[in-house]
């Protein structure tokens, strides 16, 4: 399976487990920003562009992945976005991310051996929401 698919599935699984549900800070984790407000409303998280860079060595296939995780809030201030970004940090930073093959019955094609946050920022959006962007860099090798 494509490393892009398994990586996003792993990020989605981890973030959904940590951020969505009773007592947790978001209404959902999405692939792209919904065209209309999502069923649960704000705040929510989207997994945005992820850039994969080839990082091969002799006989081993490796990638560096830079993933942008977006936070969308309409709370009227930046506090909620910052709190969610903190929750994302707790979920992902220095986390050993399991990358099972999507729908692969437990098969594993890729290993993520480093996952660190590189940057975080918040921008006001034209639709009155606050848009947080966090970038995480992962080091991935073929299993």
């Amino acid at each position, binding site marked *: 399976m494509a490393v892009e698919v398994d990586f996003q599935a792993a990020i989605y699984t981890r973030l959904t487990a940590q951020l969505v549900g009773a007592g947790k800070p978001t209404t959902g984790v999405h692939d792209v920003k919904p065209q209309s407000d999502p069923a649960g409303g704000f705040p929510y998280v989207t997994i945005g562009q992820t850039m994969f860079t080839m990082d091969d*060595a*002799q*006989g*081993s296939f*490796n990638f560096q992945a830079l993933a942008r995780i977006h936070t969308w809030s309409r709370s009227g201030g930046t506090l909620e976005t910052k709190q969610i970004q903190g929750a994302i940090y707790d979920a992902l930073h220095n986390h050993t991310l399991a990358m099972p093959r999507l729908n692969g019955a437990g098969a594993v094609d890729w290993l993520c*051996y*480093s996952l*660190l946050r590189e940057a975080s920022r918040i921008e006001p959006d034209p639709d009155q929401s606050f848009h947080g962007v966090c970038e995480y*860099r992962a*080091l991935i*090798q073929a299993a």
Partner: protein
Amino acid sequence: MANKSGRTMLVKKGATTLASVRSKSVTWNGTPVDVTTDDDAGATTYLADEFASTSLEMSVEGLTDDDVLHDIAFGVGNSAKHLADITLVTSSGDTISGTFILTNYAETGAYEDAITFTATLIRSGIHTVTAP
């Protein structure tokens, strides 16, 4: 002759290619015999067809998921660092083999990156070249 990619150049221990190597280099050096005399009008002159000594040195850099050189370098004994089964396969398919001594091994672990290593192997005695 066409250009060749670096990954076609291989360093092997025994029959096994060292894994996760990113960069390889091989350097030959010769030290000629200086036979300059007053008769050479100030121009350095060397003995024809001879060298005082020659050397062949290989350097490899890569990732550490293959622990072959790591284990040799950090092993207590010295004899294991004299390797009779190292070969360099050039991009043309020539095989350079001989006894090589591991004289330098270093690992670097940057916090946000994979651990990398560098190693230097120098030839002891003469090497052989086998065409493909």
